[in-house]
């Protein structure tokens, strides 16, 4: 089985010049976890994930301490929000290199890439490199699990 059998075809993507504020509104409206960033030819040049967006909100200390279990009340940082200036930056400043697969990529390879890159969603591209779909851990996982059920019969 290939990823094309378990991907969504109506992918929502953004242009690199989109602002972070606009991207946030897409995340909220569409309730998604990953936004591929594509150029004028629809080719992915990066991705911006929910986690990347939330680095703007996360307190600095979380990245420095190995364990924050003992911090029960985040106090003043709870109501610190990203500045207007950082929301007006483009998604290009926050995006990560895109990990993509071809339509005919096998399920296991696709899943392995997700595990290795610690991602939840995986954009799928055509032979020409254009964005044609997106698949997720859940999409791939359920497709794999369903083969177990068939094998049991």
């Amino acid at each position, binding site marked *: 089985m290939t990823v094309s059998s378990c991907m969504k075809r109506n992918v929502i993507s953004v242009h690199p010049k989109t602002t972070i504020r606009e991207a946030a509104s897409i995340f909220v409206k569409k309730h998604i976890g990953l936004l591929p960033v594509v150029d004028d030819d629809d080719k992915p040049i990066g991705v911006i994930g929910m986690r990347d967006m939330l680095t703007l909100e996360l307190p600095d200390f979380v990245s420095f301490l190995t*364990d924050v279990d003992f911090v029960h009340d985040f106090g003043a940082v709870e109501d610190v929000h990203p500045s207007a200036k950082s929301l007006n930056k483009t998604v290009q400043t926050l995006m990560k290199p895109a990990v993509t697969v071809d339509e005919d990529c096998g399920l296991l390879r696709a899943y392995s890439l997700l595990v290795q890159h610690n991602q939840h969603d995986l954009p799928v591209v055509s032979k020409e490199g254009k964005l044609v779909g997106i698949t997720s851990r859940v999409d791939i996982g359920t497709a794999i699990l369903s083969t177990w059920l068939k094998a049991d019969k």
Partner: protein
Amino acid sequence: MTIIPAVISTVIFFGSLILIFSEKIHRTITAIAGAALMVVLGRILGFYSEEAALEAIDFNTLGLLLGMMILVAMLEPTGFFQYLAVLAARSSKGNPKRLFILLGIITTILSMFLDNVTTVVLIAPVTILICEIVGISALPFLVSEALLSNTGGVATLVGDPPNVLIGSAAGFSFNDFLIYSMPIVLVAWAGALLLLQYLFRKELSKQPRSVKAIMSLNPAETLNEPLIARRILIVLGGAILFFFIHHALHISPSLVALSAAAIALVWVQPDLQEVLKRIEWGVLIFFGALFVMVGGLEHAGVMNSIIKLLEQASDVPPILFGVGVIWIVAVLSAVVDNVPITIALIPVIKGLGESGMDITPLWWALAFGAGFGGSGTMIGSTANIIVTTLSEKTRTPITAKLWNKRGLPVMLLTCAIASVLYVVMFQWM
């Protein structure tokens, strides 16, 4: 002295210093390359040998540093440093001024017994945590922690690397530092703290936004391994006790530190790979390579010519000479790492001693200059570099401009205090 070896060894050493200063290549890589080049060219030209290079390495210094590094590497994951910072935060009740003083004192006491770099690496992240949840800027705290640990470290033999080097070269005991260095450092430290409080008065008068969050921190929860922490602290305390009497027992500080490390390792039996990962091998190799390079300079006769040059200036009154050393070394240490400066000056001072000068006060001048000078610029000491790098990942990064306004005055004040007290104490040194 033949001229070619002298020129070549000088070019290698100063070329390495410039590369270290430019920060284009990691300082340890520069030092290894410089050391290798020195030995290879030394052998070709006949002024340096492999045996001489090995002899140039001061294993007493490396052993003391390694021993202390092992102890800290074991203490770090227990959460003891978070425990201290959280304790300070709670007793400050979120008051920025009180927090500033308490964290300053903790950082200083730690830096007197542990390496400054380690102290700052461990205390800075918790500081950022505390400041963020109280709702105040962490920047004054980070800058002050680096500056106060630079200053406080000068007080003891094990407090900062130049002291370890000087203690080993001059044969000063742990107690010598407590008698001759500590009093001067305490005054300079108090001056630095007051000055920093004044310089940061605007930031420190801000009202904390969330005191409740600070009071909800429970120090006991920050200790991941209370039992291991207790064992290592007992061993560390024992080591400090032995530092007080090492001279009387005729054992070197490095033997004390390495024995303490061995006892702690046997008693706790930690995951050795984890401990080894936390040791700053880069620093140890940097030291070793610098010893080899400076050994090359010595063997090429460069140090002798410098000593002869300085002897001609021997009609300068010794007090003035010492004060001059404080300021020259301080300025040098502000622009380049103070470790190469100290390693390079040790043979010079030793040489002056052999020519009949009373060099005991000069060793202290070197310690004050190297220790306090590092505060002057953002790259003056490793502690400064560490808080700056950390702050670059926060919303309020430390800039070179800010350092000139906060760090430079601290360097000038501490050097001035040290100079005055040096003159006062000179006859007893």
